């Protein structure tokens, strides 16, 4: 069955603030943003930032895929958002990868179509820590020159996967990295270099 975790204490304001933070992070790839507002204690095995973003973004019309059997997380998300859980990653509007080893090839997620590139999946990847200023070299829209992002506990094959994702533009998935309360984004428009 799973145990239901508490939702946002102040749903309207917290979700708005966190959506703004996500928007900011997505438009400036590689910058590390600490989510503002109240972050509820997440159900196993989600981190606070990933859980809060799901509560704010997901609704009954956006199917969610989790990387495995996580009864607490799945029941909490269904209870608070009304979203359905899907077993097939290609059907999900939002996907959560809780363990770095669980990341599938990115092309298995919905890529959108040439008519509707927005019908693609947003993948939330949980990592150990995030730090700007070192690590991967990023270039692209929203970045003045280059930016650097260090991803602690990144899954193997992430960089080649992101490069392949970039080549599929305007199709492809957008990646949100979550560590604790912090997030960083790697949209499909960003060039990534190890």
């Amino acid at each position: 069955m799973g145990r239901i975790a508490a939702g946002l204490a102040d749903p309207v304001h917290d979700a708005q603030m966190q959506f703004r933070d996500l928007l900011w992070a997505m438009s400036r790839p590689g910058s590390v943003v600490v989510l503002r507002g109240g972050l509820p204690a997440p159900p196993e095995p989600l981190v606070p930032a990933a859980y809060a973003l799901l509560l704010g973004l997901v609704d009954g019309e956006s199917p969610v895929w989790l990387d495995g059997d996580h009864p607490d997380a799945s029941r909490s998300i269904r209870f608070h958002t009304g979203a359905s859980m899907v077993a097939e990653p290609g059907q999900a509007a939002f996907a959560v990868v809780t363990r770095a080893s669980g990341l599938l090839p990115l092309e298995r997620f919905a890529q959108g179509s040439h008519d509707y590139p927005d019908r693609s999946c947003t993948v939330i990847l949980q990592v150990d820590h995030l730090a700007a200023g070192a690590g991967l070299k990023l270039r692209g829209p929203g970045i003045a020159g280059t930016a650097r992002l260090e991803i602690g506990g990144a899954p193997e094959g992430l960089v080649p996967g992101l490069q392949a994702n970039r080549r599929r533009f305007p199709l492809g998935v957008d990646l949100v990295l979550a560590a604790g309360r912090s997030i960083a984004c790697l949209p499909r428009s960003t060039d990534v270099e190890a």
Partner: protein
Amino acid sequence: MTELPSLRVRWLQALALASDAEAERFGQSFGVGDAAFELLRAPEVGLVMARGRAGGTGTAFNLGEVTVTRCAVRSSGDRIGIGWVQGRRLERARLIARLDALLQSAPSKAVDAAVTELEAARAERQAATARKAGATRVEFFTLVRGED
């Protein structure tokens, strides 16, 4: 335990339809103020679509949207309580949710008696309204005009 679901439905309905004083008294008698609860879903106001059937048997149609308040809590005994009430009544939704969690582990005899009392009070209120309306009823009589 087989009768538990129906009793739960009865208390959820009775508490949503009770007057403020009745609901408060009911809550006090079950010690709702002393128990600890974790808020799962803070009381929130929204709309639900009320549907009806013409004459009770026709095809369903959308009657209109109704304002409701809902809330969900978890008791220290790990029971999840939900509260739904018509209108913008945050405190009532919270009270119902707390009581719902609490009553699930309360002895059903005492709960049954208290719920029956609420239901009787509501029936009495309805009867009073019906009497008041009934007193103003006008009966119309016409003479047969022989048209048919």
